[in-house]
């Protein structure tokens, strides 16, 4: 009886099969890549109600992080400063600058500024600034060179794997606690060695079990 499929079908089938396999692999691969925090989370840099430049304040003017984020050593949260803090200077400096109008409004009318959160952890993660800063983990380790950012951008994936890297081997990210806000600080000598010393004297044992961060 007559053949239903021409002989060439075999070839097409084989090619089609190969293409399908490649497509699937490619799809899975690219999804895995794009959905990875390193890609998805880092680089997030929302537009803020006031174009506040960390580069200007923390970098050029050399203000200490803690001047504004004053609770970083006392609490889990590194508080965003009240408008009052801005006004300390800005009632003299640039007191007419229209860009700062929202801040002035906030101060005068008592309406809160609506800053957009950049570094966001899931709510089931209990991160504590106090503990990390106290141990000598610098701002730069997680937030990068904020003093060089005009608009703050997320540089670290803030994924669990990323946290664990440091929790398993913190030495590299430790420095004397009084230097945590010196974003440009370069250790003289082997940083790991310095880290080890600090671990020694402070008995630093970062938790790697669930309840260390999840409750």
């Amino acid at each position: 009886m007559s053949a239903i499929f021409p002989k060439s079908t075999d070839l097409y089938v084989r090619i089609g099969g190969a293409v399908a396999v490649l497509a699937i692999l490619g799809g899975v691969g690219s999804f895995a890549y794009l959905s990875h925090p390193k890609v998805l989370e880092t680089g997030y840099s929302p537009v803020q109600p006031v174009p506040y430049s960390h580069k200007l304040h923390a970098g050029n003017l050399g203000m200490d992080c803690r001047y504004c984020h004053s609770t970083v050593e006392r609490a889990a949260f590194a508080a965003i400063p009240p408008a009052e803090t801005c006004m300390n200077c800005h009632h003299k400096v640039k007191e007419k600058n229209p860009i700062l109008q929202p801040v002035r409004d906030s101060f005068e009318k008592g309406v809160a500024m609506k800053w957009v959160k950049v570094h966001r952890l899931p709510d089931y993660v209990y991160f504590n600034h106090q503990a990390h800063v106290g141990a000598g983990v610098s701002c730069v380790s997680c937030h990068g060179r904020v003093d060089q950012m005009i608009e703050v951008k997320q540089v670290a994936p803030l994924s669990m794997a990323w946290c664990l890297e440091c929790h398993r081997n913190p030495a590299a990210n430790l420095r004397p606690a009084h230097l945590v806000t010196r974003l440009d600080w370069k250790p003289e000598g082997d940083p790991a060695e310095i880290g080890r010393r600090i671990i020694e004297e402070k008995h630093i044992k970062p938790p790697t079990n669930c309840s260390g961060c999840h409750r």
Partner: protein
Amino acid sequence: MDLVQISNQKKPTGAGKHYWRSVNELDGTAKLEGWLDQEFPAGPVNDSSRRQVLKLMGASFGLAGLVACRRPEEKIMPLSKGVEDLVPGKPLLYNSVFVHAGAAAGVRVTTHDGRPTKIEGNPDHPYSEGKATGLAQGALLNLYDPDRSKQVSEKGNESSWEKFGAFAKTHFDGVGNGDGLRFLSQRVVSPTLTSVREQALKKWPGAKWVEWEPVNNDNALAGAQLAFGNVVEAHYHLDQADVIVALDSDFLNLDSPTVLPARQFTRKRKVTEPGDAIARLYAVESQFSATGATADHRLRLRAGAIAAFTADLAALVGVGESKTLSGEKERKFLAALAKDLKANEGRSVVVAGPRQPAEVHALAHAINQTLGNCGKTVTFTQALAEPMLDGLKALAADLSGGKVSTLVMLGGNPAHDAPADLDLAGGIGKAQTSIHLAHNANETSALATWHLPEAHYLESWGDARALDGTVSIQQPMILPLYGGRSALEVVAQLAGLPSAKGHDLVRGFWQGQWPAADRERVWRKALHDGVVANTKFAEAKVTAKAPAAGAKAPGTGYDVAFHPSSSLWDGRYANNAWMQETPEPMSKLVWDNAAMVSPATLKALGATQGDVISITVGGKSIEAPVMVQPGHADQAISISLGYGRKNAGRVGDGVGVNAYPIRTTAGLHIAEAQVAKTAKTHKLVTTQEHFRMEDRPIIREATTAQYKEDPKFAEKMSEMPPIDSIYGYHSYEQGYQWGMAIDLNACTGCNACLVACQAENNVPTVGKAQVSRGREMHWIRLDRYYTGTGDEAQSVSQPMTCQQCETAPCESVCPVAATTHSPEGLNDMAYNRCIGTRYCANNCPYKVRRFNFLNWHKEDEEVQSLVHNPNVTVRMRGIMEKCTYCVQRIQEKKIQAKVEGRREIKDGEIVTACQQTCPADAIVFGNIKDPGSRVAKLRHQERNYELLAELNTKPRTTYLAKLRNPNPELA
């Protein structure tokens, strides 16, 4: 999506519309100063910034919704001006005072970003000592009750405080000398309110002020009157007594509004060495109470027969002549008891319960005096108030007589809970103008011309005298969510005082009491300490007269005794889901009350559990489901008040049976009733369905004598040889090793720990239907078992929570490693990893894991999420949860120690919520590897045993066996 759900639950997403509205409605100044005083000793801040504080608190963590495609955009809303002492995310603690049924107890309130989230006892307050009852802690939820009244209303129509102010001004100027004016309040123990009352009554000489609490201590006061000729308050010192007799008195739980008696008693029951002497407790009671369960000897006697028993006891110890009214069974008991009392003169005490008539109290006083206990185990001070029933009778008469033109009701729910024969509900209608101040628009509000929303005690200024006279200032933690006002403020307003602001009144009053020089200092100290120094009453020297005769034999009908509910008290917590779902300590009944009867009585009624019976007193009758209570007196019924509310709110409406209709002035506490079975039945739901131990060594118990003989009896009770683990053992030597020891000898099963845990760990409530399916969520439960026969049953209870097994069966079976072990010996539970196979719960031999079968927060309103502890994830549906030894508290202290550069955490620095509040100090948590720690010491006691040790689970929680101290003559 699940993450989003979790986040919505965990932290309050925004603080709720009402919340904001009320903040904007408030007029600042006075409350502002109050705020200043309590929070910012220095540095002026204006009202708006305070509003910002509150805003930040609620709103800053809110999700702004899925704006960005990448992630939901979150807003951070800082203050506009800095606020001293306020660090976002750091809790602040304030001392205040909680008044419950006329008894004040100091509380310490945790506020997270301005939201009160946890109530604990104030360690410096004599009636708290750092502990709080379940009710005191549960009252927190009433603050966030979405059914609270949010509106002033006139004849049911919306109105406002302004309108009411205008009305009040004209109306109360027109009442002349106040002949037709009556005030009806709850028991007043506030010195400031007392003085305001005096000013009001001076302004209106003709007016009368009546107090009413459906659950009161009138009998005790009257008894004192009878015995001593004047009304004094008796203070029992149970920690001084070796022999204690409780006459129908559940002083360990229901019959004491504070934790003090429980603390005193359990202090005297603690054992460190075999052979240590402990107090002996005799309980004579009708219902089976927590006190009866703890007693070494318990005589079940219908409430009406206890007067006779007391008379006989009095005779035997040499007070009055014997009438021997009691039956054969009682005689033996009486003889041994009297002998024991005589042998312990000056070291014994007889306590009569509030349900017993004045005569019994008088007799008890006389007995104590004869035994030389007065001044030793019982002392007296002036009383805070007079008996209140007569005043209410007079008011009722005036009302029905039409003598009352204006009736001002401050709090409470008199129309619902006043004695039925007074028909107050009817009377209120007769008054031309009636004003009712209340948290919820309740049964009484429905009858009143004006209804005013009352401020919660956490929202308002006040003060209170404890029973021993100690004064505490009540300071607000949060602005009134719904713009309510306190009784104090309302009276001041009506009386037209210069200022009607709670803060001005309270502060003004006390400034008047103190030397001008250091007023400010004293005031600050009072606020800080939660008590005003040297305000205790002086001890009153009194001598008891020979007791009046009049103890009669009990009648032939059924005795029905009315108890406050362990959950709802007199009904004021009816709309509180935490309390509704807190099991009744003995029956484990939830979301219901029932007519408790003995097995014999049940048979006599020809009924089975859940059958509805009709209880008739003087023509009036109610229908209630019957529940069998082993150890209950025969021919007697106990029923708890507070249920069967009609206008309580969404939670409390129609739950249980209203017992007030058969509660009359004649039989306010105990009445004689006719009982008949009806054809109806009602489903009763309990959190524990099986009450026998099946001969398993679960709760291990011995007499002090046996303990002396064989100190290791508890260990020996578990039979099987140790089995080995195929996984080998992890060594837990490094660092802290957390463990818990629970002393069953101290535990009274009072539920305080259960409520503490509920508040601390955001434990949801599930409602009656789900409890009946066995889905209650309590992380710590109190297992209660009966021993002995159905009639003479004894009862033991055991706090059961995650045992943090070192070789945890739950951990090895979780496919996704959501529950694993921490190096410190905790059985971690990562909610965000759990997928909900429930295998862990199946494999848990203690069945302490709880599963979110449904989304228990579906119906929550925004304001309800304000109660949540931000340091604990609110679990979504579909995941497993369980006790973690309050790991959030452990972490907090560890971080604190690190930051302070400390190597070690001191023993007792970390306390779990259950431990912190346990009135009996039965729960001790700490580092078991530190030989000096309390927990380690307890674990080394001979009584210490591991539950189900034969399974080789190596639990970190261990129990200390229970001891009883029976009288050899009765053994």
